């Protein structure tokens, strides 16, 4: 495999891993506060639709992004209401959100645009354009580093850079700030936080809201960054892969980056069966590569590679009075 091919695969990896990374960090915030979130997929899908629809109608991708985030946050609010305020089952609420998003997006799209559950194609300012980083063109011919900078680092949409910046930001918020300490404590021992006079309910709602924002960005990236419009079910299971990545990373921000990059790389590699065949000299079924993220997650869960311990209070609603 030569450098150009490798760069192409890595470039593809970055694009495919970005929605996974954003959704994974979204799940990280929610689950670290003790709220399991199966509904990442549904939130991404709703965000993809509303960002595509509003961008198509207004011609502004930024309004689209806001609409996508708003739609995702509404679903987050429903999830919070069901699982925090009404102490419902978090898994059932999450599954319900996935169904709700899958059905509603198509119905609204059909009633709104009459294009078989699609939004019109986005053109011009209604899409996130790739950003060429400074000096990318001039440095292009520098051996090795030039192409790496030009192809891998430059030429992505702004949401990609935002997603990567979210990793240190998440690390700082969760592990270095006071809010993060409380958020993690709420996920491990909510009664202790409550005794200290911090609102468990409020902290959990804040975590779920952050989750909504990040899922909204992830969904908007699918419809307005990678593609030019919404197509029904376009999230295509990425929310579930992000969940797998979350477990794979054992609920830690930097590991989440590694896990999503690995899963993104596997997806990118699955697009190039010819590379694998020349490298390994045996044809590998594409289906195996598609299934690898899940297989790896099961391996991690089974405890072969260290232990994956979820937040202790995860999945259980907090009841103040005993």
């Amino acid at each position, binding site marked *: 495999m030569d450098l150009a091919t490798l760069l192409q695969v890595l470039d593809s990896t970055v694009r495919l891993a970005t929605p996974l990374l954003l959704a994974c960090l979204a799940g990280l915030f929610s689950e670290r506060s003790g709220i399991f979130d199966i509904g990442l997929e549904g939130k991404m899908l709703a965000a993809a639709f509303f960002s595509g629809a509003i961008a198509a109608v207004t011609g502004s991708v930024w309004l689209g992004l806001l609409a996508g985030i708003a739609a995702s946050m509404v679903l987050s609010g429903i999830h919070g209401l069901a699982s925090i305020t009404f102490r419902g089952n978090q898994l059932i609420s999450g599954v319900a959100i996935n169904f709700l998003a899958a059905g509603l997006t198509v119905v609204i799209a*059909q009633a709104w645009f009459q294009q078989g*559950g699609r939004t019109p*194609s986005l053109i011009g300012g209604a899409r996130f354009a790739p950003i060429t980083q400074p000096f990318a063109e001039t440095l292009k011919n520098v051996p090795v580093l030039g192409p790496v900078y030009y192809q891998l680092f430059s030429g992505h949409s702004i949401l990609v850079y935002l997603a990567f910046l979210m990793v240190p930001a998440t690390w700082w918020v969760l592990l270095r700030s006071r809010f993060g300490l409380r958020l993690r404590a709420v996920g491990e021992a909510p009664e202790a936080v409550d005794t200290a006079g911090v609102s468990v309910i409020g902290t959990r709602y804040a975590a779920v809201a952050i989750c909504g924002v990040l899922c909204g960005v992830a969904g908007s990236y699918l419809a307005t960054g990678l593609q030019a419009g919404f*197509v029904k*079910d*376009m999230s*295509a299971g990425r929310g579930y892969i992000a969940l797998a990545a979350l477990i794979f990373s054992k609920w830690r921000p930097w590991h989440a980056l590694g896990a999503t990059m690995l899963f993104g790389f596997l997806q*990118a590699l699955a697009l190039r069966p*010819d590379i694998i065949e020349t490298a390994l000299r045996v044809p590998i079924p594409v289906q195996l590569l598609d299934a690898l993220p899940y297989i790896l997650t099961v391996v991690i869960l089974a405890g072969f590679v260290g232990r994956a311990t979820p937040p202790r209070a995860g999945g259980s609603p907090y009841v103040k009075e005993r």
Partner: protein
Amino acid sequence: MTFFNSFLGTAAATALCAGAAMADPALIFDLGGKFDKSFNEAAHKGAERWAEDTGNSYNEIELQSEAQREQALRRFAKAGNNPIVMTGFAFGSVLEEVAPDYPDTKFAIIDMVVDAPNVRSVVFNEHQGSYLVGILAAMASETGTVGFIGGMDIPLIRKFACGYVQGVKAADPDAEVIQNMTGSTPAAWNDPVKGGELAKAQISQGADVIYAAAGGTGVGVLQAAADENILSIGVDSNQNYMHPGEVLTSMVKRVDNAVYEAFDQGADLETGIKVMGLANDGVGYAVDRFNADLITEEMKTAVEKAKESIVSGEVIVHDYMSDGTCPVE
């Protein structure tokens, strides 16, 4: 007496109306809806053309849910509509149950074979149409490498791929065809992001014309091709307009012709399997104002010649579904 006369008159008028309703054909659109820019819209166009040409009217319904399939079929059959045309393979199992209950009504189903004495099953020779766009792709390619991106990995899509490769090799025996399938589950029909990435991967391998037979995923392929300034080929309905000047052509399935013909034959609809191929303009390649500049005279001559030799039986395009293999890679 006057009362009796007017009563008779009304009765006669009612009978006439009923007679008119009896003759009316009906069309059922699948869940995509009649303005889906693809399959159903083509059926709608065919029906409208028939109504305009003949001055007759027809009944139609757009399904809103899976549960309405049988209901709609029975409702139309009871109301005396004849023939009843439905679009899409999803009606197959429902029609199998409904058709025997209404032996005097003729049904036509598109893209599916239902074995009943009062059903016409319309199937298309997609491999022949794909062969023609394969010739165009090979001639339009400057790198000598072209791509194919399928949706879900099923025999029908392999039929598209196999016809396409045969066409490419016929025009340029040295040409290379990169083939990818999006996936092996129905999600593969609606993953434009993966479609776009597949297109970019094929472009990096040198492909400069990519044929997408992948439903909603194809939207992503056409988009990525337009973004990277290479040519793409649409499928099913004419998709040339989606990126003017950047979609080489579209492999069209003339669903409109199938509907028109069924309506035209009315209650005397010929039943059995009806194959729509190149000979009866069932499949073809689309040329319109959006791609007229992309198709050169030389390409036009070559593709028309190929079309003639397929129709005359001189060239036989191998159908993947006949034996599950493809003679070329």
